[in-house]
């Protein structure tokens, strides 16, 4: 049963950390609890579907369907996070100000927030499908205490996620969205690196150095802290060159995008906003 608990914990931890960052980044958004729960529910349903069709997915792309599927899910999450952080860099300050003055009632309104709930669904889907396959195998094999192991693993992973969420909430409001935004940027870098790892495994990308270094003796990726860092910053104890490139490229693109969106705009007034202004004046 310890084995079941550990495996479930491992998978749940990954999703839980991503959920807690999203929960923090959407602080102050109206009904975000509902959105996050919906994202998790969508992810679980998706995980069951993926597990049901795992055999079908595996045979796609002449046996490389699994790698391509995982890479696509990860890259979709990267794009969603990227869109959100770039959008936030021009609206985040207003949002923080609004929250300080009005308190907790910012309308989600923007599609950028909805994207983050999509990220929750994708994270749960990816990790969840493995848990479903694992549990299915156990039950088919007639193992004992499957539900207890599942419960304990779920509770443990969720607890670590909660711990991280409440830790993040202690960050002072003026720095809050800057910190969560940076965490999202780094998270996206890590997800892109993992996606590159899958494409390398499928032989779709060159390695550019199969193992650039080996820091497994220093910090193993299988340890709790190693795995936590793996999700939060993309830590890998034996990274391939192409993974490092994917990480650097993603972070660079997002940082440039954020800078560009938050540049002072004194002269260039977007046509749409002036049109809106005209409508409002009427």
């Amino acid at each position, binding site marked *: 049963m310890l084995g079941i608990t550990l*495996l479930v914990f491992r998978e749940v931890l990954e999703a839980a950390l991503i959920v807690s960052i999203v929960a923090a980044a959407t602080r102050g958004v109206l009904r975000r609890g509902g959105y996050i729960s919906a994202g998790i529910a969508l992810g679980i349903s998706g995980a069951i579907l993926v597990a049901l069709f795992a*055999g079908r997915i*595996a045979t796609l792309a002449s046996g490389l369907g699994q790698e391509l599927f995982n890479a696509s899910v990860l890259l979709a999450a990267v794009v969603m996070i990227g869109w959100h952080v770039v959008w936030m860099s021009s609206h985040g300050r207003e949002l923080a100000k609004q929250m300080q003055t009005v308190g907790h009632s910012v309308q989600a309104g923007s599609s950028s927030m909805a994207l983050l709930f999509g990220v929750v669904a994708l994270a749960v889907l990816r990790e969840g499908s493995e848990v479903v396959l694992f549990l299915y195998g156990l039950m088919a094999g007639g193992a004992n205490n499957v539900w207890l192991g599942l419960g304990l693993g779920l509770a443990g992973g969720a607890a670590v996620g909660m711990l991280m969420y409440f830790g993040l909430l202690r960050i002072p409001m003026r720095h809050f969205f800057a910190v969560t935004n940076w965490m999202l940027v780094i998270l996206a870098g890590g997800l892109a690196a993992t996606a590159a790892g899958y494409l390398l495994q499928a032989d779709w990308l060159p390695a550019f150095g199969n193992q650039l270094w080996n820091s497994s003796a220093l910090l193993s990726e299988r340890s709790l802290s190693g795995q936590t860092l793996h999700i939060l910053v993309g830590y890998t104890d034996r990274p391939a060159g192409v993974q490092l490139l994917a990480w650097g490229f993603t972070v660079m693109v997002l940082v440039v995008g954020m800078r560009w969106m938050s540049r002072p705009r004194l002269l260039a007034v977007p046509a749409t906003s002036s049109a809106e202004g005209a409508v409002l004046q009427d």
Partner: protein
Amino acid sequence: MKFWLSVVAGLGFAMIATVTIAARPTISLVIENHRFQPTELRIPAATKVLLLIENRDSTPEEFESTDFNREKIVMPKSTIKVFVGPLDKGRYKFFGEFHQDTAQGVLIVE
């Protein structure tokens, strides 16, 4: 200058293409009763090989190695392919994530 750049680029592509097309050594691995057969695989150093892993059990398994960074589900009664390497000489452990008590093996690169 431009000419030489394109020559270098062309050669680069040609090299990558040859490396990808060149036939790879193929090695088979079987999962039965949640154990690997054989438990020891030997491959040459600095070579990319294709690992064919057949799961003869009626439950899914996940072939995984943190030592050489691979992770792939093997559905019941089916075979997966996993590209491995090129790796330096050494011993690289792999395991079945879903049955870690029994499914353990090592890849020896020599």
